[in-house]
């Protein structure tokens, strides 16, 4: 445990977050954009678990548990919204889903 400084975990977490940001910005498929959001949530989880473990307190891990709950709920509702949009527009390309634009 003392061998690996906590900075390594935090840098890995920051890197995964940056990759997730890139994915949200460049991908066109709404489902893949959702996957990139899951990636960003996971990078946050990694930082929380790292801090919780190095502090010897379980509060961070309990927070990760709640983040996972919210991520599951978000994935279920978000994918249902994507299915509803696909039924109306027959596409999941986020460039073509512009019904609110005027």
């Amino acid at each position, binding site marked *: 445990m003392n061998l690996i400084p906590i900075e*390594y975990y935090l840098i890995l977490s920051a890197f995964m977050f940056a990759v997730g*940001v890139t994915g949200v910005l460049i991908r066109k498929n709404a489902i893949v954009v959702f*996957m990139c959001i899951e990636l960003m949530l996971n990078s946050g989880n990694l930082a929380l678990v790292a801090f919780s473990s*190095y502090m*010897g307190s379980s509060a961070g891990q*309990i927070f990760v548990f*709640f983040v*996972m709950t919210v991520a599951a709920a978000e994935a279920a509702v978000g994918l249902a919204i994507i299915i509803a949009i696909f039924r109306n527009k027959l596409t999941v390309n986020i460039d073509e889903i512009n019904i609110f634009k005027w």
Partner: protein
Amino acid sequence: MPFEIILFVFFALIAAVSSVVMVTRPNPVMSAIFLVINFFALAGLYLLLHAQFISVVQVIVYAGAIMVLFLFVLMLLNSKSEQKLLSGQKKIKVFAIVLAAFVFIQIAYLIFFSSPSRSLSPDVAASIKAGTVEEIGRQLYTGYILPFEAAGFLLLAATIGALVLAKKKFN
């Protein structure tokens, strides 16, 4: 070289590479597969951090339930792969990568500026105790009982919301 460092480098490399590959694959199914690999690597890192409960929940909930949901929706919508991802829209891509690099540099600078390892004194026994199912379960059912109930209610609301949204007709 100690075994712990080898394991950390192994899992960290898998996590970093699979996240990059996931963003760059044009086929969404390949993206999902590499995201699952990334989740497994993260579960290994959680085990290195003595977080047994979170590690198992990561595999069951994320790599199991959530990714199966994603793959089901991909199967239902048979979306074509984005062939033009790596050809067109040079400007947006450059902007996105510059923005992400900026975010990364900012976070990395803050991490090294605050140097959290100076103020944290890692105690292996305490960290092993904090990650056990027993400890997390006790905390969840005593100190965090209200957020726990709220999370259950949130999941119920999400289930009903997903059912209503994915129904055939809105009346």
